[in-house]
């Protein structure tokens, strides 16, 4: 791994890191020093309602999440599967907006100054909010990085400069179909970490095999020195441990979101103990990830 990293930097492909001293970089450095991969947990802001959502997010660091990815709800999340789309719609129904998502981040930051927060979403709500204002307010709320799913490098002009100006990492996605010819454009403007979408498909469906992941990570390392997180299709503690060991972190989303969906009453209100159940699952993931390497 270190040989590949050295090769990449000597070939003149330094990663753009506007936030080199930021929480994301610090956290990956700490993980590296501890010689283990990290756990990134995803849930949608405001799912199933703002209070429950904040209770879960606030409990994530103690449960063992190393980084927290928070979905900004959107009515038409076309790269996500049914589980995450349903979570978006639950949050919107509960009155969630982009402003309230940033408020949730700010509320979390009152109790935790170190765990990195990455906001994941689609461009239209950001465009409606105003990209400059969004970058300013997201940074002020204590967010560290942004994943904008439907904004490939070709269309990043409206968002990348404001994010950089406010010290937010622009986290890019690479996929099994991202060719060696295309990867330089993807990692060129990326910072924080590289999110590897490990399957061809949407979130929460099939899973990639370990040899396929191993090969993919080796290929990505030839193009970037950024830490690599593997996501899409990671559902169990075992899979999370495997992916985190192969790369630098594993992202678990739909499996956590499913626990929320399974613990709602007929009216869509959270049943007692929902937050504890979600956090217990995160703790099981964290335990496996920490034992994995």
């Amino acid at each position, binding site marked *: 791994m270190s040989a590949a990293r050295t090769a990449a930097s000597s070939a003149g492909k330094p990663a753009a890191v506007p936030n080199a001293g930021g929480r994301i970089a610090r956290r990956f450095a700490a993980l590296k020093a501890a010689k283990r991969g990290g756990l990134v947990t995803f849930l949608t802001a405001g799912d199933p309602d703002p209070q429950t959502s904040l209770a879960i997010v606030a409990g994530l660091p103690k449960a063992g999440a190393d980084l927290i990815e928070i979905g900004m709800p959107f009515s038409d999340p*076309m790269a996500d599967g049914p589980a995450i789309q349903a979570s978006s719609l639950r949050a919107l129904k509960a009155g969630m907006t982009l402003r309230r998502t940033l408020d949730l981040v700010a509320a979390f930051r009152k109790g935790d100054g170190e765990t990195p927060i990455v906001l994941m979403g689609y461009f239209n709500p950001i465009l409606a909010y105003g990209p400059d204002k969004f970058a300013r307010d997201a940074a002020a709320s204590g967010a560290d990085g942004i994943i904008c799913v439907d904004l490939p490098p070709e*269309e990043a002009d409206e968002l990348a400069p404001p994010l950089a100006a406010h010290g937010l990492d622009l986290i890019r996605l690479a996929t099994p*179909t991202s060719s060696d010819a295309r990867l330089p454009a993807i990692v060129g403007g990326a910072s924080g970490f590289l999110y590897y979408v490990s399957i061809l498909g949407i979130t929460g469906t099939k899973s990639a095999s370990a040899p396929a992941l191993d090969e993919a990570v080796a290929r990505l390392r030839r193009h970037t020195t950024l830490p690599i997180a593997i996501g899409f299709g990671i559902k169990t503690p075992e899979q999370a441990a495997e992916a985190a060991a192969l790369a630098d972190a594993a992202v678990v989303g739909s499996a956590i979101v499913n626990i929320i969906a399974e613990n709602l009453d007929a009216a869509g209100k959270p049943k007692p103990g929902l937050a504890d159940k979600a956090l217990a699952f995160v703790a099981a993931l964290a335990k496996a990830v920490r034992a994995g390497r």
Partner: protein
Amino acid sequence: MAPAPQALNSYRTGPDERGHFGQYGGRYVAETLMPLILDVEKAYVAAKADPAYQKELDYYLEHYVGRPSPLFHAERLTKHLGGAKIYFKRDELNHTGAHKINNCLGQILLAKRMGKRRIIAETGAGQHGVATATVAALFGLPCVVYMGAVDIERQKPNVFRMRLLGAEVRPVTSGSSTLKDAMNDALRDWVANVEDTFYIIGTAAGPHPYPAMVRDFQQVIGIETRAQIMKAEGRLPDTLVAAIGGGSNAIGLFHPFLDEKGIAMVGVEAAGLGLGSGKHAASMNGGRPGVLHGNKTYLLQDEDGQITEAHSISAGLDYPGVGPEHSWLFDTGRVTYAAITDREALDAFQLCARTEGILPALEPAHALAQVVKMAPTLPKSHLLVMNMCGRGDKDVFTVAEALGNDIAKKAGTH
């Protein structure tokens, strides 16, 4: 909302190499989809330059679709309205009953060239689904059509048609279970089946190159119209009118004429229960620019950027967005965009049936309602061409339901 109109030397050069029409269009898709749409673009550019491809497309357009479609002087309607001389471009006479097949043929021939072995599509009213199922049957390729569960319920005849043609109709229950959700699910299928699948998008929207490609396939409407009106009248028309859902029939008619400065063009959006009611499908007259389904364009959305639901009696216009080239033509002022309510479209539907013996689809019934408003204000020498882009057989149940009381009353008094 729109910037001041600007006169350009040409309105026909777009999109640029990144797929933008001014600020609109583009490729706002997840990284998983990027390699696919770049492939489609590359293959389309090559096909466009290949005379053999064009020759094959022309063959099927003539012998399978029945092109050219006639340009018909609607004499009784002209007399009834007492103004402009009205022509119908009769794309409702195409095989499958609408303009959709022009585009489906172009795309499936491209899919074949690319070696794809499976076809997917989205559909709202079912017209594009039927056209896609038709060409898939013609070329022996398996076809999956995504259709909102709500739309399946209100468009049963078309669902049965698609199944007769051998297509699998997959109900979409995510989101609002309508056209926009069907498009989301088709895109999800495509991402998961990169290797063998071609996605035939039904309108001039979506990520580049689709808006330009679909427009190119529909331009045959305008190109034929030019030759036909020259033959009939010895000169070009004064006004063109067409309905706008995603806008493929309209851009097909308008595009070849965009640089003819003397020709006025009117696109007609669906105003549903009225622009002030909040229940309409008029993205340009009642929405604002945003990003959805791979392109930047005018959208129906709330203050938070969440997409809101469209409403129109015409399922084919019931979409919260519009093709990006229309958004650009709207901002530049080259094309005027009007809005027609459900009620006005229903009135025009009946008027056309009685004066011309043609049941228009509810989509062109919107264009016709605009003609009914405009024609009486124009001189008799004014040549007006309206695109009759689909036939109304599919809509008779919807129309009967909407007019139920009226029909009952008439039946009672006769």
